[in-house]
């Protein structure tokens, strides 16, 4: 049973560029949440997708957008990258209507120069 997978594992971009990160949820899961984790901090909620719709959103600017596909996989897009966007981006999958936790993928480490 495959767990949550993310790609790429590492990424280096320059300020102003755009980036797309990808996530495949755990088999059987229908909900994908994205988190940003800065060095030394806890994960911060970006948004959550269910049935291809953004269901919840954290306190992040519109530069952060996402998408969920019919196969439940998801993408996170960040436009006009800033130095402060450098972080570990984590994808977590879950079942929306089940009292269970969220399972995290290995993350994508983004460095903005």
């Amino acid at each position: 049973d495959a767990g949550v997978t993310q790609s790429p594992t590492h990424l280096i971009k320059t300020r102003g560029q755009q980036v797309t990160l990808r996530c495949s949820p755990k088999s059987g899961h229908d909900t994908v949440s994205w988190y940003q984790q800065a060095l030394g901090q806890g994960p911060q909620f970006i948004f959550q997708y269910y049935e291809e719709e953004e269901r919840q959103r954290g306190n992040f600017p519109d530069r952060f957008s996402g998408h969920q596909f019919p196969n439940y996989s998801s993408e996170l897009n960040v436009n006009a990258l800033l130095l402060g966007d450098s972080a570990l981006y984590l994808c977590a999958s879950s079942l929306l209507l089940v009292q269970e936790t969220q399972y995290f993928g290995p993350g994508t480490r983004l460095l903005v120069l």
Partner: protein
Amino acid sequence: QQPVQSPQAVILREGEDAVINCSSSKALYSVHWYRQKHGEAPVFLMILLKGGEQKGHDKISASFNEKKQQSSLYLTASQLSYSGTYFCGTEILRGGATNKLIFGTGTLLAVQP
């Protein structure tokens, strides 16, 4: 709104016990405990639901005091593999569907031989 964890850091010898606390200013539906090793994704340890019982497996257990909006993680007879940063993730409301997790400030645990 971010839950506060205490202590911020703790150093143990193998075999010693530790308690990590997580305190929220908001009424909580559930508390999720994760351990994260450097450069890796958070790994799920256990979930405590409102109205639920104290949980535990192996030598790690946790409790949830709904009246005080506090949860504690108990590590007994610590092993080297217990080293890492521990985060509590809190869920404020559910309404029948999975909600975003708000993570605490983190507790760095180092177990020495």
